[in-house]
Every structure is written in structure tokens, then in C-alpha cells.
């Protein structure tokens, strides 16, 4: 059983604190994705787990064993780097077998393990080539092969797909997921791409500025973001956020960010989930996803709280099954979705319905979500 546990892990680079006391419990066999904007400390955290970076405080344990001061080779982990870090002077076969050769395993054993990994990743044809003679996708595969050859307790991935083109990236994403289902090891995967995080993760760890902001399944983060950062980071297009002020106990007045609520904005009902949790005059951010604002007359599920708005469409983005509509609510640009496409002229005003029960209310001062 190889759980990975971080408790109060800190990393300082001189006076700069890159990771601020992280706590994280990763179960055996779990696929955990660390995601967040560039520079938020994901790689640093991963490298501390790998032992490539000394930890400045706290404890890292792998399989119940505290590994704070163990060198990487004694942690029984393997890692795939963003630039693959294949050994350029070795053939693919030698690259794959390197870790076993270092451990002085018997040649037959090495050959068997290398062949097994090669078969899993479809590398058989490439075994005698040097890394320079491989395409980006093939290098990526070799890097993964090198990681699985020695059956580590934990796989670490640091943005393994970001050097690939979009198509290959999607393809490799599927392969990584299949690989996880096949070998079943614990995987800790770092990416800045929320799509990768959503599609791969059993559990997402969303980081910002060296802190963990939210941990949960992809759907938890999507449906119940704890603050506006999570709300706008997860999901594409990002959640629409509009400044608002609570009026009375069951209305919200939406207004443009610059107006400060002085001029009368657009008043809509306060979603019932938020009633009693906000007070009259409280400044909030009102959030909803594009899917929850759609033109009337679409066959959508009945019931639920909704409100109707007349909004001008400024731009359309047809995406095939759906069309993104850019429009404006109380002076803030928002995106809406339309599922049965019909031509919409820019400038045309449509009647939209907003699903109030799917909306999110955030406190404007703290950015934290207000929900039951």
C-alpha cells in the first residue's frame, strides 16, 4: 500500500516562500492532479515528493515511511519530465533498461521487463533508435516506458504533455488514463491545463500562490467551487462573474464593475439557496456558467428557479454541437450557450433564461462562495 502524505510541507527559496505548508493525503492507487496557474508551486511540490528538492519544513511520507531526507533513488518513485529527459546517448532499449541495469538486475530480467514495458506502450519498433531519431509523441512514450519498467510505488508526472501538439496531447491523455487503469499505481500528475486535470483526475488539487485552494473530485470543483478563483479556473469557458449587491432578502442588483452600484443596475431574484446567508446591502459576485444562460425556446428541462432576461448578442462562436453567444449583463461581458444552432445576427436581442438554482454567490470582499 503506497499512500503519499504531505503534512505542513513548506518550501523556501531564500526569502521567497514557494510552498506554504501544504497538507495532502493521497490514497493508494489514486490519480491525483495538481493544477494551477504557472508559478503556483506545483512543480516544487512534486519535486519535493520526488526528493529532487529539499523540503524546508513539514513531512513527506510515502507508504507510511517518512522520506524527508531520503535521496530520490531510495523512494521507489519514477518521474516523467516535461522535456522527457531521455538519455540522448542511449538507445530506447538502454533508456528503458537503465534503472534496472543500475540496480544490477540480471540481464534476462532486464530484457523481460523492458519488453513488457515496450509492449504496453507500443515501442517495439523503436527499440534500437536514439532519442534524437524519435518524434515528440514517441519520446513521450519512451519517457513513460522508462517510468513503468521498474514498477515503482508512485508515478510522478510534471506537465508531460505540454510539449505535444493539441491532437497528440488528447491522444496521450487517453493513454495515460488507460495506463493507470492497467497498472493501478498511485499517480501524482502536475499540469496547468484544467482540461487535463478534469479528464484525468480521481481528485484534483487546485493550487494558487503556494497554497492549496480546493481539493476534490473534478465534479466537486466544477459544481461547488469554494471561491471565485476556482470558479474561473475550472471549466471552459470560465464561469461568468458579475458584481452585485444584495437588495432586501430576495433580490440582487447586478451592476458594471466600475459603477460601484451607484447607478441602478439590473435587478434579478436572489437564488433561494443563498437566502438567509447574505444580508441586505452586501457586495457579492454573482456567478453562473455559460450552460446556465440560454436563449428561450430551447428544449431544456422544466422546473427549477429561473429568470428571464432580454440581452443583446454581440458575437457568436459556433462550436458544432453548441454555439457560444457573447452578450452583456449589466455592463459585464458574459457568455451563454445555445444547443440547437440557428443563425443569430450580432446586435440581435434575444430573450434568455438564467437558471437561478445553478448560480453561485461569492462574497465580494473575500471571494469565498456562499452556499448551503
Amino acid at each position, binding site marked *: 500500500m503506497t499512500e503519499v502524505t504531505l503534512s505542513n510541507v513548506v518550501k523556501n527559496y531564500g526569502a521567497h516562500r514557494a510552498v506554504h505548508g501544504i497538507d495532502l493525503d493521497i490514497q493508494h492507487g489514486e490519480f491525483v492532479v495538481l493544477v494551477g496557474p504557472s508559478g503556483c508551486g506545483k512543480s516544487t511540490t512534486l519535486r519535493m515528493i520526488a526528493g*529532487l528538492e529539499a523540503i524546508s519544513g513539514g513531512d513527506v511520507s510515502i507508504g507510511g515511511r517518512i522520506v524527508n531526507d531520503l535521496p*530520490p533513488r531510495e523512494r521507489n518513485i519514477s518521474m516523467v519530465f516535461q*522535456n522527457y529527459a*531521455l*538519455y540522448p546517448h542511449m538507445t530506447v532499449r538502454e533508456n528503458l533498461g537503465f534503472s534496472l541495469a543500475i540496480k544490477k538486475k540480471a540481464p534476462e530480467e532486464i530484457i523481460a521487463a523492458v519488453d513488457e514495458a515496450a509492449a504496453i506502450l507500443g515501442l517495439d519498433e523503436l527499440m534500437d533508435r536514439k532519442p534524437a531519431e524519435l518524434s515528440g509523441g514517441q519520446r513521450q512514450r519512451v519517457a513513460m516506458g522508462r517510468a513503468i519498467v521498474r514498477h515503482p510505488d508512485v508515478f510522478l508526472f510534471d506537465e508531460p504533455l505540454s510539449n505535444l501538439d493539441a491532437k497528440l496531447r488528447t491522444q496521450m491523455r487517453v493513454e495515460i488514463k488507460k495506463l493507470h487503469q492497467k497498472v493501478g499505481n498511485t499517480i501524482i500528475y502536475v499540469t496547468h491545463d484544467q482540461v487535463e486535470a478534469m479528464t484525468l483526475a480521481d481528485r484534483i488539487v487546485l493550487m494558487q500562490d503556494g497554497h492549496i485552494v480546493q481539493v476534490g473530485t473534478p465534479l466537486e470543483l466544477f459544481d461547488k467551487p469554494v471561491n471565485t478563483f476556482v470558479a474561473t479556473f475550472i471549466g471552459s469557458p470560465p464561469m461568468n462573474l458579475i458584481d452585485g449587491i444584495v437588495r432586501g432578502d430576495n433580490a440582487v442588483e447586478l451592476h458594471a464593475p466600475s459603477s460601484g452600484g451607484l447607478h441602478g443596475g439590473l435587478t434579478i431574484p436572489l437564488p433561494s439557496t443563498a437566502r438567509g446567508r447574505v444580508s441586505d446591502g452586501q457586495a457579492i459576485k454573482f456567478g453562473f456558467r455559460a450552460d446556465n444562460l440560454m436563449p428561450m425556446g430551447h428544449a431544456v428541462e422544466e422546473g427549477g428557479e429561473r429568470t428571464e432576461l432580454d440581452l443583446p448578442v454581440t458575437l457568436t462562436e459556433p462550436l458544432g454541437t453548441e454555439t457560444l453567444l457573447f452578450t452583456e449583463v449589466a455592463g459585464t461581458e458574459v457568455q451563454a450557450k445555445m444547443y440547437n444552432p440557428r443563425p443569430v445576427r450580432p446586435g440581435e436581442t434575444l430573450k434568455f433564461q438564467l437558471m437561478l438554482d445553478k448560480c453561485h454567490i461569492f462574497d465580494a470582499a473575500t471571494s469565498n462562495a456562499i452556499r448551503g
Partner: protein
Amino acid sequence: MDRNLTHRNRRRVLKAVHFVALFLTMAIICIPGLWIVLNSFRPTVEIMAKPPVWTPSFTLDHYRAMFGGAGEGGVPVFSYFRNSMIVSVTSTVIAILIGMSGGYAFARYRFKGKGAYFVGLMLFRAVPGVALSLPLFIVFARVGIIDTHFGLILAYVAMNVPFTVWLTDGFFRQIPKELHEAAEIDGCTRWQAFWKVEFPVARSGVASAAIFAFLTSWNEFALASQLTRSVGSKTMPVGLLDFTAEFTINWGGMCALAVLMIIPALILTFLVQKHLIAGLTFGGVKG
């Protein structure tokens, strides 16, 4: 149409200019060497003839004399060659070991005063060897290592280390640190990661540093002429002086010895050339 033509003509002219410039440069580099080789095979009269003799005749006299007895213009070629070899090879090996460690440290580690230290090393390299010859002579004489292989090796190591540090630092810097990290995760110690991964990848860089160090020692004259006295320690460049007498210079003999000096350097360069040109293959990283 017209414009096409002018552009094509211009390209032709540029090509011609390029070729001529290249030819002149190569001529300037190669003619002195060629001259030495030619002269080593010509009778002394012909070398000194004024006006010059354009159709050279061929003789092995200078070589015969050089390997001959001490009385007939012979010099202890084999001793000089052996001294040169011992001094150059040993000092190169030592300088590479030290310089490579230094270069690696500069490329991989952060430490206090790194920049200043590096500049200091380079400045040290900028001091001309001749300027050091007198102080070195005095110090070596006091310590008692004048006229020994050891003394010369010491001087050459000091001369070559800064350059080797500088060169290998550049090569190691180009190797992504992920390579040794991957090796360490694969089970290597830091030491193994260096020898099994980083060193082989930087091999061409180390080879070029080695050839530079070797040639510097092999050709060095100013220091060697001061620090060596006897047949037991004189190197080939110093040996060339044996052909100068009080009033005459035996140009033919000197050229013959110079040819013998050039040959090993040439062979070495050809052997290592593959590494020099191959450059670093960074196929292992990125796409």
C-alpha cells in the same frame, strides 16, 4: 523579370566574393604550415636562395642529419618527443580532471562569490605566459623543480585549467538538469548520474577542451624555454632552438623537427575531430 535578373546576378557575385574570401583566409592559415613542410625537404642552399627557386628539389638530408650523431647536426629527437609527450599528456589529463570538475560546479551549483570567482579564473588566463616566466623560474629554482617534467606539468596545468573550466562550464550548462535528476530517480547516486549520463553527453565538449589543452602544452615555448635546460626535460618547441648556432640558423633542420611536431597534433586532431564536429546531441529532451 528585370528585377529577377539583377537579384540573380547579385547572388552570383556574392557567391564569388564569398569563395575568394574563404580562399584567402585558408591560404593565410595554411601557407606557413605548407612552407615548413616544403622547406624541410629542400637543400639549405635552395631555402636561402635569392631570388627564390620556384621548382623545389627533394632531399631527406635534414631528416637524416637530425637523427644522426650529435656532431653532424643531430638533435636528441626521441628524448624531446618523449618529454613533450609526457608533459603534454599528463598536464592535459590533470587539467581536464580538475577543469571538468570546476566547470561542472560552475554550471550546476550555486555558491557564494561564484561570479567573481569565475571572472578571476578568466583574468588569470589573460596573463601572458612570458610575464610569468621569470617569477616562475625563481620559484621553481628555489623549490628545486626547475628542469623537471613535474615543474613543467605544474605550470601547464595552471595554464590550462581556467580555459577548461570555461569551456566545460558552457557544455554542462547546455545539458538540462533533468537528465541527472532522471538518472537519480532511476537509482543513481549523484556521482553515478554524472559518470553514466552527464559525462557521456558532454563528451564532445570535454574532448574539445582536451585537444585545446593538449595543443597548448604541446606548442608552448616561452615558459618551457625558461623552465627546462637539459635533454632530460626539454620539449620539442625548445628543441627547435638547438638548430640555432651563434651566427647561423639551420632552417632546414628546424623545419624538419617542426614537421615531426606537427604530425602528432594533426593525428590527434583527426582522431578527435568526429567528437568536435558531432557536437551535442540533445535529442533526449524536448521535441
